[in-house]
């Protein structure tokens, strides 16, 4: 029987097959490190007198804690400053390359791998961060790990793992203008639920996926974890190769040819069988937004806040709890929900294409007086590119704030936080209670919806603006 993409990559990385109940020992090609989930792992190495086995397969960046203003001054928050200083000491001691604040390559850890050409098809990629699933867009098997596992990878360059099950997400048809891969993944999560992908690697397939850019694929794979999936993957193709060619760490010359030949084998065999299959009709999708406090609580923008009175007891209780936190009344039209803040950023949607799409909507428009809009590039490379294209000026002219790179308001570990009760349309990945600041209320949206919402002040798509702006992203 044939093998799926995920199984092929798995097979190529088995260092040692587990016996009986034992897990397999899997080799890790790339370990991404940041300041929040690594200090205890470095401590563990020191405590046991262990070396970091492969500094040459490890790379670090500063992202979760970093301020997005005044980045050349010392970090004002003492505890954040200590965490960043600790990372700097650790990478020095263990010989790991770091992209520190102020470096032209600094950025969110999941931006760095692809930009540098380090994330390649058929590799295994891990990081102490659940959105490591982003890298699966290249046909890598990429997943988030905890700090104990971070230490394990540092010490051994391997992880003991039980094989995952496989789930095909078949996205057939063609996305309409104004509908993005963010809308697709929000739809997938609402369909299968936040636990629906538990135990699975999700492989995104079908015509709509093949038509997506690498950046759009990254957005989709990024949120696989929000569907409970351990990883998300897309089989590499010409789009992948074109993205990688010429990047700093991509293979060159004869090595490039050998690599591409190997990468072309990385597709699910026609006779392979998935453990589960989900179908999504791309043609019928419209912009999708969340109304509740988990990423599965989403609906098309044209619909209304759900009514617990129409549900069974368990669903009604969960819905009431979410609506209570969100400060929403049942049956309110989603388009009538007014926001205070718009956040364009995060490892989900802070790449150059996201910024171009949002800028196209904002060009010639002003954001509503009632709205504060933060535009936070995922990386300094994206920031530089956007500035070269004049996009920063479009955002500034529209009344938005143009910041430096980092995780920022996606999780509010730095000063970029919502105040209690504030409502935000956010291009990030999690609408959990308090995620963007204690008491803050989050609606997950695409960059196009974020931009249109900033202009109108209520959840909107570019179609709601006059003159109508339609963009394909």
């Amino acid at each position, binding site marked *: 029987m044939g093998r799926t993409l995920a199984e092929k990559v798995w097979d190529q990385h088995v260092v040692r097959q587990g016996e009986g109940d034992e897990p397999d020992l899997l080799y890790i090609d790339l370990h991404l490190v940041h300041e929040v*989930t690594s200090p205890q792992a470095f401590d563990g190495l020191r405590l046991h007198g262990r070396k970091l086995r492969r500094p040459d397969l490890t790379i670090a960046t500063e992202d979760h804690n970093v301020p997005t203003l005044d980045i050349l001054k010392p970090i004002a928050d003492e505890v954040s400053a200590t965490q960043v200083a600790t990372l700097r000491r650790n990478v020095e001691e263990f010989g790991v390359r770091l992209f520190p604040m102020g470096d032209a390559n600094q950025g969110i850890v999941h931006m760095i791998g692809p930009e540098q050409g380090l994330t390649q098809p058929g590799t295994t990629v891990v990081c102490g961060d659940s959105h490591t699933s982003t890298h699966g867009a290249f046909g890598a098997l990429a997943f988030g790990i905890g700090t104990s596992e971070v230490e394990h990878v540092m010490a051994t360059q391997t992880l003991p793992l039980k094989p995952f099950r496989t789930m095909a997400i078949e996205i057939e048809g063609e996305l309409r203008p104004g509908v993005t891969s963010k809308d697709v993944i929000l739809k997938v999560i609402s369909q299968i639920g936040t636990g629906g992908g538990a135990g699975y690697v999700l492989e995104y397939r079908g015509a709509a996926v093949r038509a997506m850019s690498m950046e759009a694929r990254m957005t989709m794979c990024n949120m696989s974890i929000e569907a409970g999936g351990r990883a998300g993957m897309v089989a590499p193709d010409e789009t992948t190769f074109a993205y990688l060619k010429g990047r700093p760490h991509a293979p060159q010359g004869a090595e490039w040819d050998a690599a591409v030949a190997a990468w072309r084998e990385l597709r699910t065999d026609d006779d392979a069988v998935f453990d589960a299959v989900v179908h999504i009709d791309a043609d019928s999708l419209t912009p999708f937004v969340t109304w509740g406090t988990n990423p599965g609580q989403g609906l098309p923008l044209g619909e209304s806040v759900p009514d617990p009175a129409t549900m069974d007891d368990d669903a009604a209780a969960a819905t009431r709890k979410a609506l209570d936190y969100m400060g929403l009344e049942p049956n309110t039209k989603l388009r009538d929900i007014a926001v205070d803040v718009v956040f364009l950023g995060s490892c989900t949607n802070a790449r150059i294409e996201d910024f171009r799409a949002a800028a196209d909507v904002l060009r010639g428009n002003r954001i509503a007086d009632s709205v504060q809009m933060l535009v936070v590039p995922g990386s300094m490379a994206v920031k530089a590119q956007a500035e070269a294209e004049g996009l920063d000026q479009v955002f500034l002219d529209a009344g938005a704030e143009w910041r430096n790179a980092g995780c920022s308001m996606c999780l*509010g570990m730095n000063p970029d936080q919502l105040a209690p009760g504030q409502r935000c349309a956010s291009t990030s990945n*999690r609408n959990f209670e308090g*995620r963007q600041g*204690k*008491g803050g209320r989050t609606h997950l949206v695409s960059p196009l919806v974020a931009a249109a919402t900033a202009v109108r002040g209520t959840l909107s798509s570019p179609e709601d603006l006059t003159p109508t702006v339609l963009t394909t992203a």
Partner: protein
Amino acid sequence: MDKFTTHTGIGTPLRVSNVDTDQIIPAVFLKRVTRTGFDDGLFASWRNDPAFVLNQEPYDRGSVLVAGSDFGTGSSREHAVWALMDYGFRVVISSRFGEIFKGNSSKAGLLAATVDQSDVELLWKKIESRPGLELTVDLHARTITAEDLVVPFSVDDYTRWRLLEGLDDIGLTLRHEEDITAYEAARPSHKPTTV
């Protein structure tokens, strides 16, 4: 890691589903560089509410948390496991766990016991009918006993063995260092390096 065989302690009912790791410990509490001291961040945004279960005697002294489905979803932060353990929990019971949380628990020595939702409901009723009731969690037998109620739980065989023996995962892997070296020698030369 300490060995885990059986544990007896007060059951704390947490009648909430989809408790993500941002709820278990918000990001602002993740800034410490140590592995302990996270108990003040545990369920931080709910701790101000006097009605929250951890603000109620005797549940505040619980060491077996009986939670709703999909516990520990979301962020990979192992701090969620550390915060639960720092507070005093040794066992968390749910009908389904976030994958990364479950893995983190097994590495840090917190038992994540998967129990059918119908049995979770029975445990909740039992505990609430007699607050302060002690549950006994037997990892050998894979059972949870609450007075006359005995419910089974599942945990994978490898995790169970490691917890019973208190084994360090890295030490186990390093027994196979020759296999790792052999694998490295055969890796394709086009694989990337960060230097």
